[in-house]
């Protein structure tokens, strides 16, 4: 055990002395989150909003004034008919159109309820979500103010949100889960395969193999630091996505962390597998990038929805581990579901991990012969 700990300590030294490793480990995830985070928070200042007011009464004027004076929006156009909505959205400056139905104010007083439509440009999903969320919040705020002043407490404006062009807003909900999935496979698989092949290339692996350290101890010693650092990475990304995006984890955070550990383990075993088939660092990097990174980005549903892919790619993505983890993490983070709904994906990941470890152990032995 003491031998093993000394070995782990050495591995940590390698990591902390190499700025490039440190940068990939922590710089990239933080940069990615910040880039996405700030790109979004800048867009929402002075976002163009068009108003289609079919009622023109006291209430609609008050409400649209409140929306436009919030600082988040700027009026880009006054529309006269529904036909103009598509046109104005297509021009691009307008991110959303707010539609007050005919007789809005009268209906509100007579029936205690009126509806307002927010039609957003779904081709920019992040902006669309923020615009609709902000508008909805302002309308709710307005409801509370009205309830305070009016005699009738039941007055209620119901915002109806509609997305043009991309009704389900795929990529926004995919973003944080996607970054976690990508970063973990990058750190765990790429970095471990590189660190193991580095020892091979420099000849230190031979010295280690001749030493009383068992091969299992060598491999565990090499991957333990990466397991710990990857896990810290998950925590950092989750904390930042919460602070920068305001995106909390809806489901069980413990379940999410356990699933993350499983995925890290899977990635590490993939990294070990890659290191057993490559003899140089370059080879390991190439296999990791082409074999793992690209498919993770393209085929896992991170950027391009699997539903829209040609069938062949859909089947191809079935063998990509990230696809399952993305489903898992998305379910827990965004839908807040429990293990009951994701046990299949979890099982697939466990199976994959077992297979990868099995093959690596065999390969490792063959190489020693």
């Amino acid at each position, binding site marked *: 055990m*003491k*031998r093993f700990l*000394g*070995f782990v300590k*050495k591995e940590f*030294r*390698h990591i902390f*002395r*190499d700025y490039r490793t440190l940068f990939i480990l922590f710089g990239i995830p933080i940069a990615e989150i910040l880039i996405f985070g700030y790109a979004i928070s800048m867009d929402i200042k002075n976002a163009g909003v068009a108003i289609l007011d079919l009622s023109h009464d006291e209430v609609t004027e008050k409400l649209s004034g409140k929306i436009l004076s919030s600082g988040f929006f700027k009026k880009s156009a006054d529309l006269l008919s529904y036909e103009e909505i598509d046109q104005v959205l297509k021009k691009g400056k307008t991110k959303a159109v707010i539609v007050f139905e005919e007789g809005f104010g009268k209906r509100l007083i007579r029936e205690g309820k009126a509806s307002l439509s927010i039609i957003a440009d779904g081709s920019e999903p992040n902006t669309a979500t923020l615009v609709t969320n902000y508008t909805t919040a302002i309308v709710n705020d307005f409801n509370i103010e009205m309830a305070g002043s009016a005699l009738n407490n039941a007055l209620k404006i119901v915002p109806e949100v509609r997305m043009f062009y991309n009704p389900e807003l795929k990529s926004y909900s995919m973003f944080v889960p996607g970054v976690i999935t990508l970063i973990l496979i990058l750190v765990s698989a790429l970095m471990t395969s590189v660190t193991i092949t580095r020892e091979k290339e*420099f*000849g*230190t692996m*031979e*010295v*280690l*193999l*001749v*030493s*009383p*350290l*068992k091969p299992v101890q060598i491999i565990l010693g090499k991957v333990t630091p990466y397991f710990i650092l990857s896990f810290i990475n998950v925590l950092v990304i989750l904390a930042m996505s919460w602070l920068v995006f305001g995106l909390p984890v809806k489901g069980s955070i413990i379940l999410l962390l356990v699933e993350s550990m499983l995925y890290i383990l899977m990635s590490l075993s993939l990294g070990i597998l890659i290191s057993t088939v490559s003899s140089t660092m370059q080879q390991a990097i190439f296999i990791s990038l082409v074999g793992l990174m690209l498919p993770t980005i393209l085929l896992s549903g991170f950027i391009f929805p699997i539903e829209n892919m040609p069938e062949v790619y859909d089947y191809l993505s079935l063998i990509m581990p990230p696809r399952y983890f993305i489903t898992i993490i998305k379910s827990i983070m965004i839908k807040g579901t429990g293990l009951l709904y994701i046990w299949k994906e979890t099982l697939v990941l466990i199976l994959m991990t077992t297979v990868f470890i099995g093959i690596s152990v065999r390969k490792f032995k063959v190489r*020693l*012969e």
Partner: protein
Amino acid sequence: MTMKKKVIEVENLVKRFGHFTANDRLSFDVYEGEIFGFLGANGAGKTTAIRILSGLSSPTSGKVKVAGFDAGTQAEMIKRNIGYMCQKFSLYEDLTVRENIALYGGIYGLSRSEITERTAQLLDRLRFREYENKLISDLPLGLKQKLSFAVAVLHEPRIVFLDEPTGGVDPITRRQFWEMIYETAERGITIFVTTHYMDEAEYCDRISIMNDGRIVALDTPSNLKKQYNVSSVEEVFIKIARPAGS
């Protein structure tokens, strides 16, 4: 000379990979404190034999005992009793001299106090005090190689295997390196060395020459020169060791 105690015993060692026979009925003994040169052209089967002797690979058949342990069944015990330095340089470039020593000391199961004590001895003996906190990557090649050897015998093994330890080093450093080898052998540590430099072969107590998987000559350098009626080991080597395949 009292070098009668055998530390390596090899009898009819055969190693096959499929149909290819890498080691064909090797038999030799190496005695305690001896400097044993293991020569042969590239592809003659030296590396395979060293891997078996150091417990990395097991023989197809034959008896191999290293430090009293069987290479087929007790590889783990062999590993505890040998040191190893390979032709590629084996210290970690991004660790300091002191950290490298501590790492290998730890791997070979030395206690903390032993490591501290031996590190101090080693630094003094090599006059390395001024480098102790320098990264290995900042040292010149000659110093690295010396340190590498010192680290390989840090745990006082019975035998140390040196696989072309002096590749790429200037003649003066090579001479100093061999002085270290002599000192180590005098402490009773057996040296098993492969080399491409024929002048180095002259420094060995005994040498064996391998060709096509077999040992074709094994004796002291002076006896071999007498036997083949030549003036240097290099000429002996050229006479009997054809490169594999030619």
